[in-house]
């Protein structure tokens, strides 16, 4: 189950080792929403809403990550729109963005601030 750590207000998700560099995982938050958490090849961690607003499906965690002129992104596996991992804004349609979540690594565990 997913719980909120009342002292830090963060949700512990999984051990760092569960994430392969360059790929994402999905996690369920206590309120029923979902986040897509990514680990890049340079070992940075990012979290976005898992829902692709174009496809209206919870799939972003299953996209391929990469960079466009240095901007780290995930490309939706559905119709390939790219989202900036840092800001959630869509690189292919600037009127669209998804929510982002701060991440924290505490003692080898990835935490999300909901």
């Amino acid at each position: 189950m997913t719980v909120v750590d009342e002292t830090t207000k963060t949700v512990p998700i999984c051990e760092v080792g569960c994430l392969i560099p360059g790929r994402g995982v999905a996690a369920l938050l206590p309120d029923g929403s979902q986040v897509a958490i990514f680990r890049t090849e340079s070992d940075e961690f990012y979290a976005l809403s898992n829902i692709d607003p174009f496809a209206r499906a919870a799939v972003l965690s299953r996209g391929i990550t990469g960079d466009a002129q240095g901007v780290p992104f995930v490309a939706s596996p559905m119709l390939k729109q790219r989202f900036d991992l840092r800001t959630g804004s869509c690189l292919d349609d600037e009127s669209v963005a998804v929510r982002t979540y701060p991440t924290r690594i505490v003692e080898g565990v990835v935490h999300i601030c909901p």
Partner: protein
Amino acid sequence: MRTLVVVGHGMVGHRLVEALRAEDIENSWRVVVLAEEPRPAYDRVALTSYVDGWDAQALTLSNSDYLGDEQVELRLNDPVARIDREARTVTTASGFAQPYDALVLATGSRPFVPPVPGHDLPGCFVYRTIEDLDAIREAVEKAKAVKRGRAAAMVIGGGLLGLEAAKALRDMGLSPHVVEMAPRLMPIQVDEGGGSLLRNLVTELDLTVHTGTSAEKIEPDGDRLLTKLTNGTELDLDLVVFSAGVRPRDELAREAGLDVGQRGGILVDLSCRTSDPDIYAVGECAAVEGRCYGLVAPGYTMAEIVAAQLLGKKGTFPGADMSTKLKLMGVDVASFGDAHAATEGALEVVLADAVSGYYKKLVVSPGGTLLGGVLVGDASSYNLLRPLVGRPLPAEPAAMLAPEGSGAAGVGVEALPDEAQICSCNAVTKGAITEAIVMQGCDSVAAVKGCTKAGTTCGSCVPMLSKLLDLCGVQQSKALCEHFAYSRQELFEIMKATRVASFGELIAKHGTGSGCAICKPAVASILATMDTIAGEGGHILDGEQATLQDTNDHFLANMQKNGTYSVVPRLPGGEITPEKLIVIGEVAKDFGLYTKITGGQRIDLFGATVDQLPLIWRRLVDAGFESGHAYGKALRTVKSCVGLTWCRYGVQDSVGMAVELELRYRGLRSPHKIKAGVSGCARECAEARGKDFGVIATEKGWNLYVGGNGGTMPRHADLLVSDVDSESLVRYIDRFLMFYVRTADRLQRTSSWIEELDGGLDHLREVIVEDKLGICDELDEAMVKHVENYADEWRGVLEDPEKLARFTSFVNAPGAPDPTISFRVEREQRVPVLLGVPEVVS
């Protein structure tokens, strides 16, 4: 609104309607087309290809039925019988009367049949329409059935049309005689030297050529035709095809009192107007200032001139370039300018090589101006030479003729003047192309094609377009994406040569940044092939490779619109036992999967969540199923008809062959998906010619077709080899696939790969049949390794706890259902419901 009546719906009549409708934005003309033939205009120039599949649809010209255009009425199968110029009305054979404001005669021509005694006997045919070919085919079949062997045929006429007819007969399995009155074949286009080489080349292709003679008489002899030639030769034949030129169909015009040319044809001025200002004539029936043109290009020009005038613009026929370049039974023949050195003082420079099989002649003036030429056996320099007619040659004539790559040929497109035509199909000059590149910023062959239409018809000038881009200083980007400046093929070669075995190493050494959704899957595909060639047979989800894969490959299933996946087990050749069918049914029922039969003779199970995939596959693998690779850029299916085993018409075991091929190539990763088909007879029930590779059974073995496609760009596959045995068939497919895997671009299907191959299908045949590049051993070995190292990808996942662990919906709540996935029921099955409101933050 005025009414235009067009008499005749051939290629030129159709072009006229098309040209008018494209420009007549205000719909000022209603168009009525009155046609004699039972079908809309079709590509008569390609008539001979009809034998290759007997599919009349393949000759269709785009939009020739004018569906959806309310302004155009097309009346088929009812020829015009007379023109009443006083009443400005035409009347058809069935009595339909149609008034006109303007009339265009596009009646074409009729085959010329010399008055040989017996020319009208049963068994004598002409060669002009689909119906003519159907009749010839029927006679050939009948003769074969009676004789249980080859039928004997003769073609009267050894010109362009005669040789086309001979090719058609040869494609029907005959070895025809060709009779030409002139002392050589194609007397109009080629000279004595070219004609004699041409004769040698076509004789090797099973034709018997009789020149300098003609048919004296044809007499019936039971079911057969006994033919005597004027040189004394007697031939015992089943059929005779007259293909000795055409005559303009001007009888309607004659009866209506319009002027006709001295040698026939409806006399028109340079604006294509007849002696009646409301009546025009275009195409082969028109005699422009007395001269008829038997090629389609001048006809198209006339059609466009008339369309322009109907819309109040001006147009004048500029004369026509009668240069010809064609491929007859694989033999290049080209002729341009003053091919016969008729100009006073003209000099000839000839380069002939009977061993390599080419003859090239240039005709020049004493001052070095190019006047014309003849090329037989190798016409690769035609595009370069033809535009130079009337100009000083930029190099010694002999150097201009030297074979490519000999070092002597130092003259290229840069030597051409601006007004030289680069694309003769669409009349595009070098100047127009250069302008498109420099002024309009076209930076690729595709952009130049789109902007100028050059290279969009026969494609033979495409290499010149590419050279022109280079000359204009345009760097044609072959870059895969911003991370790699290389094409897929170049990356393949780099990885093969340097043995770089990971994406990380590759991008560090040969790229920039961290990659993207374009280069990662492309490199993953190459890595899969590298593993195969190295004989390592790794799993596509091993280590770093897992991170490179698209979601479909990552989860070995096909993502559908609500984020669930569909599952396709392999059913080789579309064959399945009742027991296995029951297993699929039970799995679908237990997991609540929507079930549908695919176009590739398989069963697709929809609606599986990520965590259900391993559970489903555990059941399928235990029952003996394996991955169908429906998710991969890989071999999908080999579709088959039921074939010899059951079918009354089948001549080979198509299911057995399909199963063998599917099992051989399963799991082969490629630039794009690969589909295949095997048909057990010429009826082609497996639709094999719509596939990347298609196999059609013949009585002697198999025909192999390559480069077919369905979808948005349908394309019939081309015949690569015919009547081969099963072992050779498999060998050629092995090489075809491996060569494609190594050299195609990312997401390039075999159809466009072949179209863009330098040298096209002929080059492909040289590489994989004749081993021109000396790589066949390597290709064969790579396929052997692939077959040896194949392993079921799903079994690989089920046996590896680390890979299995990735099939979880939520990393922090394994087993929790995804609350965004829901279904409703439609026609008794579950279908997805999408999320109501998209989550968008601004």
